[in-house]
């Protein structure tokens, strides 16, 4: 028998009314707000080049071409580079799984690639199958563990 996706409606939608109320308040405020006359960008200026120069803190007087004015973002660029580096290190640290001091693959069951016809099916009878939560399923290795 085939199954079809069903909407998970076991959530409590009552706190969501706060979000709806916030939208109504913001909409009323925004529609009553007055802004000055729009300035816009000059027609003969490259916006992408201006963003690039702003990112590396290059001012207009160092250049031959006209750019749109902006603040310098060199410090922010370097801080963001370090933050991204830290983020990827932290992601790798959180994702790796160790068993007895040895790094093993994350969220992969006991798949043996020596049989090309198996299509990546979990092995049976060749030791305990690794479950996705990090443990081993020793009672029934052919069941594939917790999916």
């Amino acid at each position, binding site marked *: 028998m085939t199954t079809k996706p069903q909407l998970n409606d076991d959530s409590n939608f009552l706190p969501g009314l706060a979000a709806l109320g916030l939208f109504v308040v913001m909409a009323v405020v*925004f529609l009553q707000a007055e802004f000055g006359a729009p300035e816009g960008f000059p027609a003969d200026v490259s916006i992408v080049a201006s963003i690039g120069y702003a*990112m590396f803190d290059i001012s207009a007087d160092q250049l031959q071409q006209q750019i749109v004015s902006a603040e310098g973002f060199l410090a922010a660029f370097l801080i963001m580079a370090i933050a991204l580096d830290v983020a990827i290190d932290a*992601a790798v640290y*959180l994702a790796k799984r160790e068993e007895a001091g040895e790094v093993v693959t994350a969220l992969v069951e006991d798949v043996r690639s020596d049989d090309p016809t198996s299509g990546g099916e979990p092995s049976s009878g060749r030791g305990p199958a690794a479950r996705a*939560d990090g443990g081993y399923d020793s009672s029934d290795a052919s069941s594939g563990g917790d999916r």
Partner: protein
Amino acid sequence: MVPPQYYLLLAAAIFCIGLFGILTRRNALLFLMSVELMLNAANINLVAFSVYWGNVTGQTLSLFTMALAAAEVAIGIGIILTLYRNFGDVDVTDAASMRW
């Protein structure tokens, strides 16, 4: 030029959809997606007012916000992976204590 009120309304709608997701769902992955929606709502405002006032500071700042969102997703996915390993589920209400 499109009036800025339209951009503000769009950003408010996307922000509130993200807030709705955070308040009503318990799945950690949906939490992460909702936070991304809220971040992108802020980006819409930054770009809209950058064009309105003729200054590229807002657009440059929105690029940094996107990079920050990427870093947040990398950490968030790692935390969700650890949550699943330790609790067997990605329900955020399961992790109610600092130790297990």
